[in-house]
């Protein structure tokens, strides 16, 4: 029934099956919206956050999601600026994923703050010394950029491109896309960084505090690096996932491997930097603030194993796999390496957000734990559902994978 909306020559599930796929996600979305509504209507007392855990699940997920969404800007950067033409195969998909991640993150932030109606104060009366200001400005701008980048993909829809004006606009916009790609790279560079800075500047939290260059603590650069390293891995992951679900070849394996390679190179650099940073922190930064580093790993489930997992298991191991040609040539290896890398960055963001608050800062305070309640989880699931919906619909009606047709034959 929606045939004339679907690109010529690609196979798509019947409308019925497609709807069947959407329904559960839509239901999840509805549930999450209700949960979020509760928090907005009754206040954040509805959540399990408290004065010790001022930041909870939401901030952690925002950080993770934005880090994973970095695939969008980085792929754009490689494609438009460094002219890596083979990435044309995934650029559209990357943009959609980026858009989903960022818009989702922004929505959750709106629920997370106590007074969303005053959100614009940050723009009107900004404190330019705050990392959070930097984050807010950059993310909002970049979300705008992503939206603009999304437009041409939208206009490539078979029906829409029939409209001459759209066709021309898409064409003209697309010709200028490298400008947006450049801007997006600039913005992402800063907000990925300032997300790291967010915690790195907290002198009152020696667990997170890091020395750095100028106004930026080392975490600023580590976050950028890790985001760029994992972005392509996440693209590999999502692409192969879509391929699994749709049972179609969408992207040439070479492209996947190329992304894996890029991921690997950056990852190894990151691991090295992270190791150096950790050593400096343990031996100088933390003790000089009066906190022997071992104190942080003494209490609760957060032992030194976290450090190992972060640096070796989820850092070094995937990096090495991705760097060896014949390993990454095999899909299972490539994918498991990519997923390891993604886990790594998620764990890193978890340590930064949750563990930082779990370890007591005053010597007589106890170690406390926190578990999100259904309102928080629900709100998060809503974002996931929203993402799946947007992506599914885009995948059905928009040319996300130009190589699909070639591979279909």
């Amino acid at each position: 029934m929606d045939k004339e909306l679907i690109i010529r020559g690609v196979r798509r599930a019947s409308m019925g099956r497609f709807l069947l796929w959407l329904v559960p996600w839509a239901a999840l979305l509805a549930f999450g919206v209700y949960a979020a509504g509760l928090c907005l209507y009754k206040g954040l007392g509805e959540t399990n956050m408290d004065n010790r855990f001022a930041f909870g699940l939401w901030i952690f997920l925002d950080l993770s999601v934005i880090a994973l969404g970095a695939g969008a800007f980085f792929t754009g950067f490689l494609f438009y600026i460094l002219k890596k033409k083979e990435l044309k195969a995934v650029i559209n998909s990357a943009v959609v994923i980026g858009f989903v991640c960022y818009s989702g993150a922004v929505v959750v932030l709106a629920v997370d703050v106590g007074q969303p109606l005053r959100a614009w104060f940050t723009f009107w009366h900004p404190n330019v010394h705050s990392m959070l200001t930097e984050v807010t400005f950059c993310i909002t701008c970049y979300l705008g950029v992503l939206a603009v980048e999304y437009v041409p993909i939208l206009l490539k829809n078979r029906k829409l491109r029939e409209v001459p004006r759209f066709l021309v606009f898409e064409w003209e916009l697309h010709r200028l896309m490298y400008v947006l790609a450049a801007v997006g790279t600039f913005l992402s560079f800063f907000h990925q960084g300032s997300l790291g800075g967010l915690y790195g500047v907290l002198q009152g939290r020696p667990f997170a505090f890091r020395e750095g260059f100028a106004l930026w603590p080392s975490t600023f650069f580590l976050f950028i690096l890790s985001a760029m390293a994992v972005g392509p891995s996440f693209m590999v992951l999502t692409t192969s996932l879509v391929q699994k679900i749709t049972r179609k070849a969408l992207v040439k394996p070479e492209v996947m491997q190329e992304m894996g390679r890029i991921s690997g190179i950056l990852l190894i650099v990151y691991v090295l930097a992270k190791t150096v940073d950790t050593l400096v922190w343990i031996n100088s930064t933390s003790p000089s603030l009066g906190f022997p580093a071992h104190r942080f790993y003494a209490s609760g489930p957060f032992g030194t194993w976290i450090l190992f997992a972060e640096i070796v298991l989820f850092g070094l191991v995937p990096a090495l796999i991705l760097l060896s040609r014949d390993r990454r040539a095999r899909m299972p290896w490539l994918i498991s390496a990519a997923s390891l890398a993604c886990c790594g960055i998620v764990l890193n963001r978890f340590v930064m957000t949750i563990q930082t608050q779990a370890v007591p800062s005053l010597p007589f305070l106890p170690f406390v734990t926190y578990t999100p309640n259904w309102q928080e989880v629900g709100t998060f699931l809503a974002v996931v559902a929203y993402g799946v919906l947007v992506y599914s619909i885009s995948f059905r009606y928009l040319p996300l994978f130009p190589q699909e047709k070639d591979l279909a034959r």
Partner: protein
Amino acid sequence: MAAKTKARYGMSIDVDRCTGCGACMVACAVENNIPPAPEGATDRKGITWIRVYKIDNGLPFPQNRSAWVPVLCQQCGEHTPCVSVCPQNAVEVDKTTGVVGQIPERCLGCRYCMAACPYQARYFNWWDPVWPAGMEKTLNPTVSPRMRGVVEKCNFCHGRLHEARAKAAAAGRREIDPADYVPACVEACPAQAITFGDLDDRNSQVARESREGSAFHLLERLHTGPKITYRSGRPWVHDALEIKVANNKKEPVRG
């Protein structure tokens, strides 16, 4: 303007005198219109601008001894963790008093400052403030109640400073009479464990006490420059309130 209109207010708390009765907490709540806790609230979701913690020397019975430590906003002076992080300037250090002010009307409720504060002295309004029917009649008009979804904290009973200034102004003076400005917790403490005053005035009692040998700051090594000083003659109290750093070549740990 006259020199005396500028001050650096601070407190000195004698841990040995504190009986842990909680008068300061109640007085603070009454003075600053802090609502009673709703049903679900715990000691992690409550609002207590000043909070008395129980510490002990960790020895087994009968050697065990406990003490009580009132912790409030330390009004950091040098590096103020919460000020630099607030995205919309809702937190700032008042140049004329050194008080770290939190403006609920400007606050967005992002809670970044709470993550930044090492003293756990900032509190978020997780719920709408609700008083039992009729009790809003007893609210203090010199302090405006905070709405849900914003962060708040001790500001040395700034409402009282306002009143003191108004009183001075009515007499045509800019400098206030120190006796007119005493925070509620200081006034309420039956044990007189808390002294308050201008640290810049070297002869003031608080300045003298802050210079005593037994005086120390919480988490001194963070270099936040707190204006709250703690005093105790009991060595174990120092041990319980300070983190001893092993194997570091930095300056020796002292309170």
